[in-house]
Every structure is written in C-alpha cells, then in structure tokens.
C-alpha cells in the first residue's frame, strides 16, 4: 500500500461514519452560502485568488450549459458520412472509435519495419549525476560523509512502493515529484487520454515510459487485450507539474 493513503486504509478497516452521506449533503447544500460569504467578505490577495477561481468555474459552467442547450435542439442535422467504411449495423451509432482507431494506426505503422524503433523526439539529452541528485548532509556524524541524495527530477514509483527507514534511505524521492499518471497524446489522432504509468524504461535520463492502455481496449492480433505501450515524454515535468507524453506509433 502507498504510504500516504492512510485515510483510505482507515475507511477500509473501520468503515465510514454513519452520517457521512448526511454530512456530505449538508456541506454541499451550504456551499452556495459559503461562496456568497467569501465573495462578499474576502479582501486583498485572497479575494483576488478567489475571484480568479470563480471566474474559471463560471466559464466551465457556461460551456456546459451551452453544450446541453445544443443537445436539446432538434433539427435536421446534416447527414454526415463517417470517414471510414463501417458495416450497416454500426452506422448511426456514436461509437467511441478513437481508442480503436488508435490501435489500428499503431498496427499499420508497425507493419513498416523502419518505423519500429523511431521515436518522435529523437534527441534525448542525458542528465549528469550532479544535476540529478542533491547531496543531503544531516546529522553530526554524517556531516562529513554526505551519503544521502535527494532526487531532483520527477520519478515514478509503483503503487506498492514503501520508503525504507530513514536511517537506510539513500535516495529520497520527494512526494511532489512523483507521478503515477501521464497525459498521453496520440500524435495523428490528437486524442489525449490520461493513463496510469506502468513503468519507466530507464529512470530517469531516458524519457520513455510505459503506460497502461488496457482502458483503451486495444486488442492484439490474437484477440487479447493489449496491456502496456511505450510513450515518450514531451514536457519538463519538474517545471510543469504534470506529465505529458506522446504514444509511440
């Protein structure tokens, strides 16, 4: 179990308070009053931040309302022929075809041998050890040796990772720089999906990650569901706070 999920663990072990739902409902019901009070009474920087947040929320809300309104409009929608031929029984269905299109694109590309080992971003610069690790000097005895290192770059640790006791922990991986999920884009389809990370090809100097694509329903030729695929990182996660990647096709 990950170390920080102690609340979930507690709920699993002891259950929830009997009035959880009631409290949640009441809290949600008070939300409007709370917002109103904040909007009227906050001052200074807080007010600024709050206004900004509300502004963003309202934009989202208006967009959603607009979408709903468009959905309700009945009219002769222009008859569009789907781009790829599909049999009669799939016509007129709103198919979630994107993920599937993904997989066939991948397959078509794989058929060309040369494309197999090419990556979208060909040049990858290595990171030196000094840049990667920061030396930690703590404690009086350890003062001179300085054998502890803090990883300064984003890392991926599996869900079953637990830290070693502080006394023995040589590499410290800061919580803020850990990533479990990546926003993976398909380059030609322009579909972006958030996928869990399965592993890292070489941690951390080579920005290739393996992502879990089982949600996409990609199927191998023998009729099994494809589990993992590689993606290449496109951004600087330590600066951006998120992990963007492009799926290798």
């Amino acid at each position, binding site marked *: 179990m990950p170390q920080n999920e102690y609340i979930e663990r507690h709920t699993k072990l002891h259950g929830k308070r009997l009035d959880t739902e009631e409290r949640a409902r009441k809290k949600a019901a008070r939300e409007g009053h709370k917002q109103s009070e904040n909007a009227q009474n906050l001052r200074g920087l807080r007010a600024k931040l709050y206004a900004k947040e509300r502004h963003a929320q309202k934009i989202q809300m208006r967009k959603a309302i607009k979408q709903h309104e468009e959905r309700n409009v009945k009219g002769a929608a222009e008859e569009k022929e789907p781009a*790829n*031929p599909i049999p009669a029984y799939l*016509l007129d269905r709103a198919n979630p075809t994107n993920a599937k299109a993904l997989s066939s694109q991948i397959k078509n590309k794989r058929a060309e041998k040369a494309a197999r080992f090419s990556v979208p971003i060909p040049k990858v610069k290595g990171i030196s050890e000094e840049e990667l690790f920061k030396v930690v000097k703590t404690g009086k005895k350890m003062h001179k040796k300085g054998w502890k290192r803090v990883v300064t770059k984003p890392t991926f640790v599996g869900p079953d990772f637990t830290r070693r006791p502080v006394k023995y922990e040589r590499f410290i991986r800061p919580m803020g720089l850990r990533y479990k999920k990546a926003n993976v884009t398909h380059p030609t389809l322009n579909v972006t999906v958030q996928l869990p990370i399965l592993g890292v090809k070489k941690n951390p100097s080579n920005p290739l990650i393996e992502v879990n694509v089982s949600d996409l329903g990609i199927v191998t*030729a*023998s*009729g099994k*569901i494809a589990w993992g695929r590689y993606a290449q990182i496109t951004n600087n996660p330590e600066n951006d706070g998120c992990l963007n990647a492009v799926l290798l096709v």
Partner: protein
Amino acid sequence: MATFLPPPTKRQKREEVERTTTQQDVTPLLATDLGSFKANFVDSDGNQMTDVIEINFSDATERNVSVLLNTLLGRDREDFTPYRFRIHIPGKDIIVDHYPTDLLGLLQKHGVTNPFETTITLSAEPQAVFKVQAVSRMAHRIPGHGQPILACQFSPVSSSRLATGSGDNTARIWDTDTGTPKHTLKGHTGWVLGVSWSPDGERLATCSMDKTVRIWDPETGKPFGSDLKGHAKWVLAMAWEPYHLWRDDTARLASASKDGTCRIWVVNTGRTEHVLSGHKSSVSCVRWGGNGHIYTGSHDKSVRVWDAVKGTLVHSMTTHAHWVNHIALSSDHALRTGYFDHTKDVPGTEEGKREKARERFENAAKINGKVCERFVTASDDFTMYLWDPTNNGTKPVARLLGHQNKVNQVQFSPDGTLIASAGWDNSTKIWNARDGKFLKSLRGHVAPVYQCAWSADSRLLVTGSKDCTLKVWNARTGNLAMDLPGHEDEVYAVDWAADGKMVGSGGKDKAVRTWRN
C-alpha cells in the same frame, strides 16, 4: 527446459509387456444384471413415436438407443437418423438435456431410487444426418478490396463462391477453392453495405450507400438490368423472395433503407412493386418469410409484418424499447438455400425445384405438424423477443433476457431448435428456440461480438468479433471448439457456407479470409 522422465525400469517394462500381450478380462465392466427400464419415446412436439419398450440399463447408451428407435420406426439402415435424447425425470418437471454415460446413476441422483421397471420418457431430437467439422485453419487470405469489407455471403449452390461487399464501392466474387478473385462488380458509387445471393444462386444483389440496389449475374460478373433507384437514403439490407413463392417467372427483392421505407422490386423488370412505408425511422433489417410475409425491424423500435403480395401491413409490434437491430426467421437457412440441400440432387424441372423448396421450408417451419414461421428480433434494449405471428399475433412468445448490452445479431440454427445471439457485452448466448429459455453463454471474446453464423448441421457456431478473432463454438456443450486468430483488425462479416465446408470472413483489414478444417 523440458523435464524428462527417467527411462522405465526393468520391472516396469516387464509389466508393460505382460499387460499388452494378455487379453484383458472385461466381463466385470459390463455388468449385465443392472436391470431395465421402460422407454417411452416422444418427438419434440410431445407425440408418442412408438410403443413403450423395455431397455436394459447396461445397453442404454445414447447410440444404442438411437439405433433402437430407428429400428422401431421401421427405417432401413441407410436412412437411420441420429437422435439426441432429453430425459424427463419421472415424477418431476426436470428435463435433462444431456444423455449421460451412466443413466442409472443419473436417475438415482435425481431421487429415483428404484428406476427399474419405471417408464422414462425420452424426447428424441433428430440430428442432421451429416456432420460439419469445425474449421481449424486459414485456407486463404485473399487481398483485393481497397477498403474494409462490410458484408459477405456464400452462394447457396456451393461453398466455392463467396461474395463480399466493401467500402471501396465494389462487390467482389471470389473463387474460394483456389483462393482467387473471380469478378469485380463495379458500379456503385457508395460503400456496398450488403450482398445477397438469390436462393437459386443465379443472381446476386448488392445494396449501397448510394441509395441504389444492383443486381448482378454472378457467372459473368455483369450487371443484370440497370440499378434499382427509388430510395431516398442509404439502403441497409435486402431480402430475396423465397424460391417457392416466385411468381410470373421472376424473383422479387425487398430492400430496407434509412429513409424508413422498404421497397419490393420485381427483379426482371426493375420495377417497384410496393413501397412499404410506415416506419418512422431507418429500417435496419428486412426478412422475407416463406408464407408470404415480410418482416421489417426499424430504429423506431417497432417490428412490422407486411403482406408481400398486397403490400399491406399485417401486424405491428411495438414492444421493444430501443432500436431493433436484427431479425432472424426459424426458416432462414431453408429459405436462403432454396432447393439445394446436403444430398446435392437438384430437381430437373422448375416445378420440382419449387416443390422441393416449399418442402424444405415447411419442414423447417413446422411445429406440432403445423407450418408456423417464428422469428426473433434483437434490439438495442439488451433483449430479444421471440414471435409467432401465425398463432400469437402481436403477442410475443417469449422475452429473451440475459444480455448485458446491445444485441447486434441473432440467428436461428438451421434445424430451428436453437437461437444464437451476439452482443456488445462480448458474449454470445444460446437460447432454446421453442420456449426462449436461456441455455448457454459463450464467453471468450474480449470485445463486442458483431456477427455469428451457424454450421449447416446446427452443431457448431462461428462468431466474429471486434477483437480480431473468429471463434468456433460447440453449441451443445458451449465449449470453444476452435480459436481462429489471423485477422489483423475487426471482423465485420462472417458466413458459414451452406454445405458446411468453409467459413468466410472479412473485416477492417481489407483481406477476405476463408477457413476450413
């Protein structure tokens, strides 16, 4: 690394030789004094077939009982029909579908402590006299189409001709014996959504996104007459008039379109005979029944039954809660193959052919000695309905519940006893066609099952799925008989030839594949 067993010791070798050289004493295995029971044979309608006869438990294997029944019915050895028996447990409502190896044990298990001298009712279901073997390998991969294959159908004459319709606006006829293209049928200006052979195998109809239906001569690959224009939108499905109903020396063809109408064409003249309008939305499926009814299912949730001659509405069923996707008739196989059957003797005269086609239809549709064609409709509301318009009118016989997602296709087995349904919940389900009871769920696909097709002997079922594979199932046991990977992408169309030799499939990977055993 494989683990090798040590070589047999001298003692083991000696014992082995001794065992193989001496005759085994099998007398205790065949205990003869197990007693006997009285068997009462009934057919599937519940009528008694012969007098009650006493059978020894030790002899009561399914094969022996089948031979006995044939003898009692006074058949010659050449005309023996294999039977399967369902055992009615005496004094209870339980019916055991599988004939066990140990009948006595089964009876005792069901609480019949002293089965001797009791009368046990065995309902005998005749099986096809021929046996189709499960396809097990890819015979040919025939490239040619430039776009995904959307439909395929084998000729009713033999398995050597396969027609496919594709997104590249052509239909093609393939010679499956050699794995070569035979004809390319060019003319459509939109995707070819359906192909359909006439029941005599002398015409091929194709329907397309370009709102037309075209008729072709499959021998020459030339168009027959001009294109049949009239629909206002895509033509989605077609159905030929059953061979025994052909009038005025011409066939008729029904076509269903997205414009909500179904048109009946006189094939020889290209004239529209009737326009069956009334559906409020796209007509997704059309079937032409053997007693002159046309069945249409539509996206407006209704199923309608029309009189084909007069063009009038007979019934309208509005029980479904969502789109109707597919319709299957209990006589589908017989109607599709007309006067062709496994004996391969084709009557010489027109009347003979017509008579044979009628006879085959009536055999397929007969229940309790009465011709009543049943049909089953599959819908987006996750259910199916079994209908019997002759006896029940607009009241369904049964509602087939069990699928957890949309049901895409439904098929009656050629002998009309089972129904197979393929759904988006990755499973195929087998139902009893008589009362609509759920029998088996065939699980194994990891993506929606788009199509399924029965073998001509009703023992096997092939399913094609989005997960790029075909799977062959044993319908009786529900076991996977064969897994057929090989397609590189979704399988859109699959068909099992009427003579059972071959399975043809096509899909998004643009190549036609044929499979044999």
